[in-house]
């Protein structure tokens, strides 16, 4: 394709890459871009990934996003009770959102301000505590800023590396915060002390820009890789199969 890939398409591919090597596990992506990432991975380099319709049906083939009337191939039944079974069994990799995230990957979706009487009540911790100590977890942040990437989160919903270690071997046994994908780059925790590292920056994003948008010091590799661009096939699948309505372009506020 001759036109340049959009930022949303780059982020979809970055989300897809988080699932590389996962094999036959259940992906639970929250949000449009993570959902497309999981399905793109399944249609390209991780053909055995398992995904649902976002509700109780495990799908045998992806349906176009937002098309409520598209026929579904149902390969298994996955009501919430089963979903908890999967989470606690370790056969899952979720990409959640994060209202706040810190350098060790502690994530907050519960509230802003003191939990006892929050300034802003958000969702509550939802499944984040259980997800993070049972399965690999990644995060998608469409608005990378110092308000999201903070020195310390207000309410630890998803558990980070320091807290998992402090809570003991049962907490850290299956704990893995794999990637944080934002509109600026991809970040991981593959450092000696598991503090957040730049894995790659999206094309055109400078080191200064990402550091200025982050409320703590990032570990910087040398050289800094650039995020993989979508292939022509990735873009064809996104446009023709997975997201013909173009919902992906609405999730990143610029």
């Amino acid at each position, binding site marked *: 394709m001759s036109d340049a890939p959009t930022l949303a398409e780059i982020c979809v591919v970055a989300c897809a890459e988080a699932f590389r090597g996962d094999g036959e596990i259940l992906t639970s992506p929250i949000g449009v871009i993570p959902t497309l990432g999981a399905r793109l991975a399944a249609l390209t380099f991780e053909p055995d990934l398992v995904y649902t319709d976002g*509700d*109780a*049906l495990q799908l045998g083939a992806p349906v176009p996003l937002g098309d409520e009337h598209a026929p579904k191939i149902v390969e298994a*039944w996955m*009501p*919430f*009770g089963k979903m*908890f079974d999967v*989470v*606690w069994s370790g056969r899952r990799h979720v990409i959640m959102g994060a209202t706040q995230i810190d350098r060790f990957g502690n994530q907050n979706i*519960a*509230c802003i301000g003191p*939990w*006892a*009487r*929050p*300034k*802003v*009540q*958000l*969702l*509550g*911790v*939802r*499944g*984040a*505590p*259980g997800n*993070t*100590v*049972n399965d690999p977890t990644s995060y998608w942040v469409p608005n990378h800023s110092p308000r999201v990437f903070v020195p310390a989160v207000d*309410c*630890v*919903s*998803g*558990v980070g590396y320091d*807290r*998992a270690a*402090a*809570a*003991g*071997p*049962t*907490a850290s046994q*299956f*704990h893995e915060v794999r990637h944080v994908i934002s509109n600026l780059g991809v970040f991981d925790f593959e450092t000696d002390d598991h503090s957040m590292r730049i894995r790659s920056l999206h094309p055109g994003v400078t080191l200064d820009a990402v550091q200025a948008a982050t409320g703590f010091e990032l570990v910087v590799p040398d050289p800094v890789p650039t995020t993989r661009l979508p292939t022509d096939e990735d873009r064809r699948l996104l446009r023709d199969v997975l997201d013909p309505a173009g919902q992906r372009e609405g999730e990143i506020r610029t």
Partner: protein
Amino acid sequence: MSADKRLTEDDVVAELRDGMTIGIGGWGSRRKPMSIVRAILRSSLSDLTIVSYGGPDVGMLCASGQARKVVYGFVSLDSIPLEPHFRAARQAGTIEAMELDEGMLQWGLRAAAMRVSFLPCRAGLGSAIMENNPDLRTVVSPYDGQELVAMPALPLDVALLHANRADRRGNAQYLGPDWYFDDVYAMAAERTFVSCERVIDTEDFTAHASEQTIKVSRLWTDGVVEAPFGAHFTHCVPDYPRDEALQRDYAASAKDADAWAAFRARWVDVPEPDYRRLAEASLGGAR
């Protein structure tokens, strides 16, 4: 003669008492027993502890001031992620909260269902819920030294559920893709009241659906309320979808006391037969 458990919403409310712990089935803004919740709002009940994967059930009981404490994994309207009335109550400090991981909530209900005081789990370790709920304890496995969260049982005085169909004896049928944890709420409760879209003859359960859809047995139910549109404005698929337009009005009613009073006058403080007509018209787009 076998028991006929049919009741009205007001009969159910008459069985409730101030200070009770009430579990409410469904999930978020999906298949909530809203006609019974509205009947609670019209009553003088107070000081309630609500256990729920919360949606507008929790929000309305916060707005009315009847919930003293809420035990939850989340409270959300799904298509509107943050429940505004619950949010206002938390931010004003008017309710006590026990916030749990989603999996832990069903685990606490299962412990109550088994009549054990706790069940062990990994979920919760390392997270803020251990600090925010100082009564939570861990337990060390006698077999290998694993330290796990001892999720306390969440016994319920009453569970309130909404099903697609039920028979007069109290068996309940779920025709949508997920029955959530309704069966577990029932097992965790001293008494369970099920509202349903339609009461049918027992032999009709399997006329159009498999026997696997009859998820709650009369072993665990004490009353059945026939409540067409009883889950409205939450969804009750396949009978009807969520009434997104009314849900938006409900969310907007958290703006101030006058807005809530206006919503309440139109959509809560009305007799059920009138509500059903309003709900049907609203779902049809005629409002």
